[in-house]
């Protein structure tokens, strides 16, 4: 239909342009123009304009944000970057696409080889293009100017405390914001929570553990005398207990995608990651200001320090940037390097700014005001940074380029560090030599086996093959000797380590500080302009920081992240704290404060908290303390909420009651152990940790591809935060109860309800064993009766007394014959006393499995 008028128009146009050129210009340009008009333009019109022109844009049919009907459009390109790079046909997307390598354009059939050759020549000759016209405004993400007007990129504002009708409820400015919204939805607050529920809520929220029987008793006693004082004293004691850091540090470890192994295809162990974990726990316990905490993790190695201890802390903190999962299977060093950088950028973006900056690696961000050039400005900083994560999979030649050193720490670091590093390098070298000789030997073995098959064939050249076989057999014997020698040398080195300092994962500046080039479509082979190192343009703080020539710029990056004028950092963090305490963030997408993220339910409150947090010295403990004293937090559960609350506000966005929260995996395990009496509440000493006992060079993961241990082997009786997080081999309780995936930063865990969880409570031997411990312990006291035992169980597990009905029901269960019908398969015969213990075990198991235990209110 369209071909006829277009070709007519073309001929007219070509005629016009040719005459125009003749009257005008030098011969060269004339020839180029001729070439363009004859060979290039008709093809563009015929095959490309339908989807890539102003006209197609006006019909909403523009594809890939790419317009090919103007010179500027061609040079600027679309979502995937410039369509052509004049002079460089091999680097030009248009050329690659019409050759069907990468994109396949035009989609309805490949152009003829002659036409493709014309396009290559045209680009090689400089891509002469006379077509004027402005760049099409295509529908992309927000521009930087638009972005600056988006709510999360504008600075937090101090808002007036809103007026409310109910005038004796609010006890903190926070409550006024909450109450005003509540009233606007015709909701009213719930009555105050009772002492037992409050006690549990505070213990779980501040420490992740339930109160013990005696802790409960002393609080309830104090509360009956002076509730306010009892509450205040309890909160202060919980905030200063080391369990606070174990609970709140773990949230940050989710965000920091902490793991004790690499994951992916080569799941090697991060033997030294635990130092970072303990640093995080310790930082929360010491209430290190959040801005300082971020500075240490991004640029600890570049900060001035007053003591060797502080210096070590800061170095260990930078492990944050080194803990990511790496693709050791990758064979191209440059791709490997850019992937590590990408992981770091994504980490910093999500964890601190609540933005998915990584999206801008291949194209301008589709939604947020982050151009690709911003991504590569950040990439330059990390390109100038050397991650120190230790060695790549041992003895694999293909990944030798990925080896890095570790950071020596501890009092003897300076003295022992260099020799230790030399030793590791030596081991690495010897392992490599051993493995290379093994595979060289194996190659001959393979050839030999093939030759032995060939020689049996009727048409085989027997004498030649026989000679070859003999030769190969001798070769193998030679190899045997070499392999043996290499093995012995390695073993000898393993057995004779020098005195070692402590080791940590960390980062340091590279010797070469460099800016990064834009990688078109994220490809390492398709480089564009160099971008100066820098930060995101949309958050420009009276001129973004100048990057130093002799340093990576991480320190400047860190300063920019935690600058009080940065509109994101404080908001993102207080939102996470809020989410931990109320079950839902004021912004319900805690990792996405961008255009696609949710809008804040209480934007004024979020700003209020962000400003207050910064004014109070970025103190997590102060923030948490303030929040748990708010009337909002001190409301009762859903059963106490006024009648209409759940129908008006099923998701509890307006917080007119406190929604019960599920115990997270760690709390679940810890609580079971505490109730059973088996929990060791002391922090795990590092030298007792399973990984610390392993000599990294004893086992060769390269050969087995197998994890060195099963989750059961790493089990200990300390809190779950000290269990190793081996990517892909998580402890069962973590796997089943939605532990945060350590593959990426996570602010909000899933909350799945699947039968596998139920089966865990019904049948898991560990759960039954813990129930058995509790039962045996209670039964050992023969002076008390079953009623007293049931009461103790209720107090320990639920922090309350059973009602008379609950008590009699439990006693009925303990006396009911079916409550213990041993499986006929189990041949154990039990005496009456054992049977009683077993029945009580069954009851304890019910308590662990119950909703009341698995949720706190």
């Amino acid at each position, binding site marked *: 239909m369209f071909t006829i008028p277009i070709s007519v128009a073309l001929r007219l146009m070509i005629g016009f342009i040719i005459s125009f050129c003749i009257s005008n210009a030098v011969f060269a340009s004339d020839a180029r123009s001729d070439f363009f008009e004859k060979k290039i333009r008709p093809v563009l019109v015929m095959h490309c304009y339908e989807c890539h022109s102003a006209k197609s844009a006006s019909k909403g049919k523009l594809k890939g944000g790419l317009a090919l009907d103007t010179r500027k459009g061609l040079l600027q390109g679309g979502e995937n970057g410039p369509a052509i790079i004049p002079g460089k046909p091999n680097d030009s997307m248009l050329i690659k696409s019409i050759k069907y390598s990468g994109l396949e354009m035009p989609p309805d059939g490949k152009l003829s080889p002659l036409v493709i050759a014309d396009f290559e020549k045209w680009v090689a000759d400089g891509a002469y293009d006379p077509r004027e016209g402005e760049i099409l405004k295509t529908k992309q993400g927000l521009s930087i100017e638009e972005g600056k007007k988006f709510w999360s990129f504008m600075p937090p504002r101090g808002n007036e405390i809103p007026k409310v009708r109910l005038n004796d409820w609010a006890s903190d400015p926070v409550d006024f914001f909450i109450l005003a919204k509540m009233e606007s939805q015709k909701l009213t607050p719930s009555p105050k929570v009772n002492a037992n529920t409050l006690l549990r809520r505070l213990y779980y929220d501040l420490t992740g553990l339930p109160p013990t029987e005696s802790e409960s008793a002393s609080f309830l006693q104090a509360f009956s005398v002076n509730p306010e004082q009892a509450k205040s004293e309890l909160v202060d004691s919980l905030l200063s207990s080391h369990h606070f850091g174990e609970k709140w540090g773990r949230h940050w470890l989710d965000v920091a995608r902490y793991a004790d192994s690499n994951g992916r295809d080569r799941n090697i162990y991060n033997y030294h990651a635990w130092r970072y974990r303990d640093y995080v726990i310790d930082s929360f316990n010491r209430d290190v200001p959040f801005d300082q905490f971020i500075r240490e993790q991004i640029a600890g190695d570049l900060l001035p320090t007053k003591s060797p201890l502080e210096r070590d802390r800061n170095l260990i903190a930078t492990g944050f940037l080194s803990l990511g999962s790496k693709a050791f299977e990758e064979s191209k060093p440059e791709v490997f390097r850019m992937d590590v950088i990408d992981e770091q950028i994504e980490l910093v973006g999500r964890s601190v700014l609540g933005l998915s900056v990584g999206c801008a690696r291949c194209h301008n961000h589709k939604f947020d005001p982050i151009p690709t050039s911003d991504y590569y400005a950040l990439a330059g900083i990390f390109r100038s940074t050397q991650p120190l994560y230790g060695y790549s999979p041992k003895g694999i030649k293909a990944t030798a380029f990925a080896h890095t050193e570790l950071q020596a720490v501890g009092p003897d670091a300076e003295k022992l560090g260099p020799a230790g590093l030399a030793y590791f390098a030596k081991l690495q070298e010897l392992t490599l030599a051993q493995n290379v000789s093994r595979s060289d030997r194996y190659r001959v073995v393979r050839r030999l086996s093939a030759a032995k098959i060939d020689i049996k064939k009727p048409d085989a050249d027997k004498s030649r093959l026989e000679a070859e076989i003999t030769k190969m057999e001798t070769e193998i014997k030679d190899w045997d000797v070499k392999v043996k020698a290499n093995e012995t040398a390695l073993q000898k080195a393993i057995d004779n380590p020098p005195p070692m300092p402590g080791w940590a994962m960390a980062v340091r500046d590279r010797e070469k500080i460099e800016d990064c080039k834009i990688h078109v479509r994220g490809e390492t082979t398709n480089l564009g302009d160099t971008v100066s190192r820098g930060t995101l343009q949309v958050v420009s703080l009276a001129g973004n920081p100048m990057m130093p020539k002799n340093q990576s710029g991480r320190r400047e990056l860190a300063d920019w992240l935690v600058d009080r004028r940065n509109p994101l950092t404080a908001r993102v963090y207080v939102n996470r704290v809020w989410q931990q305490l109320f079950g839902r963030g004021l912004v319900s997408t805690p990792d996405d404060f961008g255009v696609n993220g949710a809008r804040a339910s209480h934007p004024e409150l979020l700003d209020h908290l962000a400003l207050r947090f910064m004014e109070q010295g970025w103190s997590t403990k102060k923030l948490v303390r303030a929040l748990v004293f708010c009337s909002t937090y001190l409301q009762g559960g859903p059963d106490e909420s006024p009648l209409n609350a759940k129908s008006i506000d099923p998701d509890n966005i307006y917080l007119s009651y406190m929604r019960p929260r599920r115990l997270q995996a760690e709390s679940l395990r810890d609580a079971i152990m505490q109730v059973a009496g088996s929990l060791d509440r002391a922090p795990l000493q590092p030298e007792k940790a399973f990984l610390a006992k392993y000599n990294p060079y004893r086992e060769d993961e390269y050969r087995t591809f197998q994890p060195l241990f099963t989750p059961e082997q790493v089990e200990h009786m300390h809190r779950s935060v000290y269990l190793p997080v081996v990517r892909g081999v998580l402890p069962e309780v973590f796997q089943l109860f939605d532990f945060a995936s350590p593959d990426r930063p996570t602010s909000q865990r899933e909350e799945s309800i699947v039968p596998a969880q139920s089966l865990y409570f019904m049948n898991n031997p560990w759960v039954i064993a813990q129930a058995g411990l509790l039962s045996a312990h209670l039964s050992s006291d023969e002076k008390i009766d079953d009623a007293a035992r049931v009461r103790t169980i209720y107090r320990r597990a639920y922090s309350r007394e059973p009602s008379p009905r609950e008590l009699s029901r439990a006693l009925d269960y303990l006396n009911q014959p079916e409550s213990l019908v*041993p499986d006929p398969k189990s041949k154990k015969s039990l005496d009456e006393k054992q049977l009683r213990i077993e029945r009580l075990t069954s009851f304890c198991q019910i308590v662990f499995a119950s909703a009341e235990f698995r949720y706190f209110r």
Partner: protein
Amino acid sequence: MNHNKISRRIMLESVSAGFGYLALQGMVAQATANETIDKSVPGPLAPKKPHFSARAKRVIFLCMRGGPSHMETFDPKPKLTADNGKVAKNQNSKLLGSRWKFSKHGQSGLEIVDLLPETSKHADKLCVLRGMHTDNENHPQALEQMHTGSFQFIRPSLGSWTLYGLGSENQNLPGFISINPLTSLGGLRYYSSAFLPAANSATLLGDANRPIRNPVVGNVSNNRLATIGQRSQLDLLQEMNRELLNRDQDPRIEGLIQSYELAFRMQDALPKVMDVASESKSTIARYNAEETFGRQCLLARRFAEAGVRFIEITHTDWDHHGFLTGGMTKNCAIIDKPIAALLEDLDARGMLQDTLVVWGGEFGRTPDDPTSDGRGHNNKGFSMWLAGGGVKPGMAHGATDEYGYEAVEGKVHIHDLHATILHLLGLDHEKLTYKHGGRDFRLTDVHGKVVKEILA
């Protein structure tokens, strides 16, 4: 007050009918993803109607880890055999012809290697795709792409998408089961529901690293209590849980209650399906079910009969860089009889027409090698086959070049295969989407074309 009473009563009734608030909520959420739902069954895996009429109701995926050689199985290369020993285009290598003959089978005359005599008897049921290709030539990445479409990001597995799209036919069993799955080298990602609701992830039986004949599901059995004892334990537990539900009216508690009941039924149902004692001696023999792979095929049939939507079984290892002769002989002998028995049984039960069987590895192998008894990785051309479930039987689609280096005709990318499998299941791969992190995700990302030529 009155309002509250009514809602509570309705609530309780609906709970006792096993169709409560949670299920309702779940359905509302699902309804936006999928227009029609069968309202008679509660829960996140309630059966859903497909986008259009389906040819296959379920999938059995026979995953051959390591990359089986197409030149030694389903893609005869006479020219390669003729040029055996000649220098290959890779100068360090020599062309290596197959050591085995191919013969024509059935009415279709489909050519299959002589190493698979039993499977060859079912040639007229097979639809061989000889033009397969994929993007990556490393095992972990290629396996991940075969399962999830992506090797760069963690994405839901094909089985998870299937379950998400169609729900499960049996509410007492998992809807997606992987027997002896690959658990190392990032393997768990192959079977994960990623961002899809967790109920869609695979239930894993056993482990390919330690393949055992009788794989078990974690925590499915209790040797302490007999069923009656456990029921009375559960009765008290559920009574306590219901009290909390009545007090808080929290849909999550209802989910918990349902989940305990499903778990209790699963405890019973799963071992029954997995207990092959009722199978005749001749069946055990036909499947060679005293061995691991045969048992897996038999279990796959039993799961299919029981209404499991997506069943995957794994055989490893086909990574023949060396010892090709011995390796192929051994592996083919292991898989031949069981696969034949599976096809035979599905056919005899009339189930082959709505069960799609898929066979293949993550890539194929090179026609050349520096040694004369091994082959390298080849992602540019390899073979897979489909059977039943609405594909044309007894045909080969597509081709590699004369040596087998790369697919040249009827090319089917792994995205195309995914699109085709979903199509056979009645799902439009462009419409089966899930919103996550602000955008809609598909199994096929922005790719995938249904291979129309093979649709029956």
